[in-house]
């Protein structure tokens, strides 16, 4: 008898919980990450091609932008492929600009032989150049031009 009551109670609880989920989904206004119905075709974003030739800097300390494609360059914990040409050890042979020597200083200002860990991820500052609309707004103004 006791067991029977327990079974009925748990079945009831399960039904109520499920009903609650359904209710929450209908009233919550869930939107998908896709931002479109499953039967609609998503518009893909425009592809902006790489500009060749070196762009002048817009202000004195602007990180220079990259005048070539960096598609599929590996920059991760293991390897930084930009350094294959741009590290001071290889830049001469490869005819590439060497990293600024500030990139070989650690936080304490110690001169290092290899690029500083703080400068490892090149594309945090240096981006490939393309004539594309800005992804985010920006009100930056250089102190002098």
């Amino acid at each position, binding site marked *: 008898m006791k067991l029977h009551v327990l079974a009925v109670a748990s079945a009831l609880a399960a039904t109520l919980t499920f009903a609650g989920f359904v209710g929450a989904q209908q009233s919550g206004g869930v939107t998908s990450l896709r931002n479109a119905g499953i039967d609609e075709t998503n518009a893909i974003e425009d592809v902006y091609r*790489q500009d*060749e030739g070196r762009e002048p800097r817009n202000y004195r300390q602007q990180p220079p932008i990259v005048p*070539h*494609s960096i*598609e*599929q360059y*590996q920059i*991760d914990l*293991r*390897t930084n*492929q930009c350094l*294959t040409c741009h590290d001071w050890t*290889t830049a001469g042979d490869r*005819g590439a600009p060497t990293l600024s020597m500030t990139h070989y200083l650690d936080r304490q200002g110690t001169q290092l032989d290899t690029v500083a860990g703080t400068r490892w991820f090149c594309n945090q500052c240096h981006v490939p150049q393309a004539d594309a609309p800005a992804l985010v707004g920006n009100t930056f103004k250089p102190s002098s031009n």
Partner: protein
Amino acid sequence: METNLGEYRETVHYNNHSGVRAICSDCHVPHEWQYKMKAKIMAVKDVYHEVLGTISTPEKYEERRLEMASAVWTKMKASDSRECRNCHAFEYMDFTIQETRAAQNHQKAIDTGMTCIDCHQGIAHDLAPGYLEEYNHVVKKLAAQPHQGPIDVAGIKSFLGTQSE
């Protein structure tokens, strides 16, 4: 074999604008019979270690990544990137439609007798730390080996003292 397959699937040899795909064997199995048979026999080692589980976890794989890459680089450097050249030939390249820096470096490669793998490491698989040092080591090791070029007929003839044809 799943790790390197996954990495390859992120690259241009798997997915690209022209819709031409190079599969594993296009780069790793030679076309010519004698080299193909050699590759097939050497592949027994790969099967053995796959069964043994030598590279069965990401950690084990990373530990051996450089060693495995180094073995393939040695093969490619020694064969003058033969498998690359089954599709990519300098003779068929139009440098004028290449990116400036690519065209310049390809011209330099022709002039100085470089081979594809000298610059294009890690185009289909991730690179391990210290890969460039390891590649330079491979080049040095191969250069130190006795030259295995075409047979020096003139040298043999002069050694035998038979100058006439």
